[in-house]
């Protein structure tokens, strides 16, 4: 594989930005955001150069690597710090740096009133660097560094306003739940090393053909655990909703466009593992399907605009995971949906941020309404994103989601039918709750107090929104056209035969659009054509209540892990003090006690000692008497 010494700059630039801003401290307050944005943009530029170079090469020669140094080398465990840029990672590089740069620009204005803006930009740059390391690492261990690095950046950014205890808790929750996923990645690496003797992508790929299926399944399942944690999939999804505590640009960048999709990247990157482990692949599909519906259902019940979008993110990633579990047929569509989703979801989050910006940081959609007139740009950009996500042609989401539904239906047998139905149902629910968001925010009558003065955001904020909305309009078609994207990624995957088509594509599209129409129609009837309270109605069905409680995810986690964990902790603290240390102190006390007990025999009276001597002498004589008998 060709080497390219330019790869390191992709990471080095934002890393430098982060370090400079953090180390310089207040000195960099004035220009810190500019430096960070420049670094991010610079990285994007490097990415573009790399892309153009890559386009010039033959498909087989496109991947390039760069070895930086030997990182860990012990016995047969050799891991180099080296980077790999291939067709898959370049997509991510451009998404991360591109969307990242836009969000940097957006944040300059969005965070302009925060006195810690420099720190915010430092974290953003740190995130960009870590995320790039994640997608550029050429081995699972290198990926792991980025994997936890983005976790750290996410922790820092969710808790950016950590003076509020709830936000600090949310950040901690995110990190810890991510760590559970990271543990899965650790396991995967360990299993890979123990069974295959290597942890690099190429090494594992090489061995994947003749390794036992059991080993591959184990690795696959563990990778899935990792992906589940990072991508907020069932059952480790609970952190994403709380993660909305972070500033909105963070939600757009990390918790919508990039970091949460790392799980999809991991699964697609590990396609060789999953291809060799059908059981793991099946699990992937199941997880994706469950999360798809799970997120969608939560999305229907949320009144907090960011949480509704977060639930939608979860659901959309469910689509991607599901697609990536469908094998070579689905990988490309998973990534394609990931990219389009990156555009429209980031755009919508920025839109939500813009709405909040204009509404004094109000997030409850029931207190919005009629904002269309006050924030036309936001409305249009958000609306384009909305059309994209519900899958209206020719917007981006239509192509990518349609492909996934089609592939799911074509998965064959009962599996295909079930998955197809799930994805179709998901499309309908998506249409419903996204329409609900649109209506509640923009088109319904106003429900806000008169002391609110909604206004359009400054240009620095709406320009990125416009760019992203353009992306949400055209990206789908661009990628779909002539199966361009599928061919682009094809060299990375191994095609397994032809698939049977359950239904012709046009029928599938028709079905999907029908479902979307049903969803939209219900939402319109329910919200546009009827009165909406500005507080959430209390008298609702049990299902709604459960859905509002995020389908009890926190309750389950608390009951299953948190409470027992706390119980174990407090029990162990007590045990350590009373039993373990108690035993130690007991030995000491015993020594003291036996000392004072024995001291009682020392009465101080000479005569009692004399009696003892006498008894001793008598005993001695008795012993002689007995012995000589």
């Amino acid at each position, binding site marked *: 594989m060709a080497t390219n010494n330019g790869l390191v700059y992709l990471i080095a630039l934002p890393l430098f930005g982060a370090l400079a801003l953090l180390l310089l401290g207040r000195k960099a307050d004035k220009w810190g955001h500019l430096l960070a944005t420049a670094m991010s943009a610079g990285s994007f530029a490097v990415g573009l150069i790399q892309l153009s170079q890559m386009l010039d090469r033959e498909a087989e020669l496109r991947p390039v690597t760069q070895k930086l140094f030997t990182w860990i080398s012990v016995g047969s465990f050799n891991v180099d710090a080296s980077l790999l840029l291939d067709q898959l990672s370049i997509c991510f590089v451009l998404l991360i740096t591109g969307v990242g740069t836009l969000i940097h620009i957006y944040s300059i204005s969005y965070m302009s009133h925060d006195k810690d803006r420099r720190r915010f930009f430092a974290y953003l740059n740190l995130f960009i660097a870590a995320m790039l390391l994640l997608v550029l690492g050429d081995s699972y261990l290198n990926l792991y560094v980025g994997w936890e690095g983005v976790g750290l950046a996410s922790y820092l950014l969710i808790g950016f306003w950590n003076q509020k205890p709830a936000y600090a808790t949310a950040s901690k929750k995110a990190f810890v739940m991510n760590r559970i996923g990271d543990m899965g990645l650790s396991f995967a690496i360990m299993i890979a090393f123990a069974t295959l003797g290597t942890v690099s992508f190429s090494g594992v790929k090489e061995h994947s053909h003749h390794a036992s299926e059991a080993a591959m399944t184990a690795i696959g399942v563990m990778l899935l655990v990792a992906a589940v944690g990072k991508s907020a999939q069932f059952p480790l999804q609970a952190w994403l909703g709380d993660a909305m505590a972070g500033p909105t640009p963070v939600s757009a960048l990390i918790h919508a466009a990039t970091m949460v999709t790392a799980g999809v990247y991991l699964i697609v990157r590990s396609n060789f593992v999953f291809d060799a482990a059908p059981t793991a692949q099946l699990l992937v599909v199941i997880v994706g399907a469950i999360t798809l519906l799970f997120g969608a259902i939560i999305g229907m019940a949320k009144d907090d605009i960011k949480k509704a979008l977060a639930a939608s993110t979860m659901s959309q990633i469910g689509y991607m995971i599901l697609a990536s579990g469908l094998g070579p047929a689905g990988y490309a569509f998973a990534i394609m949906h990931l990219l389009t989703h990156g555009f429209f979801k980031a755009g919508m989050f920025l839109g939500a941020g813009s709405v909040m910006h204009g509404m004094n940081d109000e997030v409850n959609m029931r207190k919005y309404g009629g904002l269309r007139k006050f924030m036309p740009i936001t409305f249009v950009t958000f609306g384009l994103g909305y059309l994209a996500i519900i899958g209206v042609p020719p917007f981006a989401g239509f192509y990518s989601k349609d492909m996934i539904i089609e592939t799911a239906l074509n998965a064959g047998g009962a599996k295909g039918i079930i998955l197809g139905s799930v994805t179709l149902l998901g499309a309908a629910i998506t249409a419903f709750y996204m329409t609900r968001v649109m209506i509640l925010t923009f088109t319904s009558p106003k429900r806000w107090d008169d002391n609110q003065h909604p206004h359009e955001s400054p240009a620095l904020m709406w320009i990125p929104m416009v760019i992203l909305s353009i992306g949400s309009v055209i990206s789908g078609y661009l990628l779909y056209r002539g199966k361009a994207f599928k061919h682009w990624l094809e060299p990375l995957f191994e095609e397994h035969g032809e698939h049977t088509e359950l239904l012709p594509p046009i029928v599938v599209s028709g079905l999907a659009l029908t479902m979307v129409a049903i969803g939209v129609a219900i939402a319109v009837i329910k919200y546009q054509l009827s009165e909406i309270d500005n507080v959430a109605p209390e008298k609702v069905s049990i299902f709604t209540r459960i859905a509002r409680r995020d389908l009890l995810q926190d309750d389950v986690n608390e009951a299953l892990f948190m409470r027992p964990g706390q119980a174990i902790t407090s029990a162990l603290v007590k045990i350590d003090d009373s039993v373990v240390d108690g035993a130690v102190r007991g030995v000491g006390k015993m020594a003291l006690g036996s000392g004072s007990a024995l001291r009682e025999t020392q*009465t101080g*009276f000479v*005569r*009692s000692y004399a*009696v003892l001597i*006498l*008894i001793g*002498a*008598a005993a001695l*004589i*008795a012993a*002689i*008497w007995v012995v*000589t008998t």
Partner: protein
Amino acid sequence: MEPLLTIQTPETVLFWFLAPLSVLASLGMLLVKKAVHSALLLAWVMVTLAIFYIAQGALFLGIVQVVVYTGAVMMLFLFILMLVGVDSSDSLTETITGLRPIAITAAVGFGGLMVSLLGRATLGREPVGLDAANGPGNVQGLAALLFSKYVWPFEVISALLITAAVGAMVLAHHQRTTPRPTQREQSVNRFRSDSLAGAAGLPGPGVFARHNAVDVPALLPDGTPAPSSISATLKARGDVIDSAQFQLDNVDTSVVEEK
């Protein structure tokens, strides 16, 4: 085989006469209240033993026993008894609970076992007697041993003796921590003490009493006896005579104040 040693009748008689006496004396030593009596009984036991030594051919030891023990050691005892003598009689009631029965049981066990052990034990040969060993004379024989075979223990023991003598002197020596009060200081102190009662010194015994003797407490002006007028030694011995018997029948103790 002819036994090497035959015990002559006089010795048997002597033994059976003296042995019970010595046992009785030692038992008495245990039981009498006054230490002086114990000392005298012990002296008797020692003399008995000295006689036994001589009877057994240990002439030198017998003499030494009399001189050193009955003479020196017992004198020392008596001397100390005099010094400490004020409470030289002690009660025989036991103060440490359960000590006496345990002690007696242990002692009876010890003695019984010892005696029965001695009764069972045999030397495996007949007693030899000291006629041969005492050939050149008992003192000469002992001297020969002491200055040859036992010369080293002998030297050590002499060192021990000297050390003990020095030790006793050191122990008995009383280092004053303050200068001895002079007579002047003592009288000053008497006058400056809390009351002037003792300023003139303690009253002498028998003064103002009909019976003018040291064992009779003096009577105070109000007719009550003054215990402080009797020597502490006499009081401890219980040799104080009640002064009430010498008291005048009717003493007019009323005092008319003179103008």
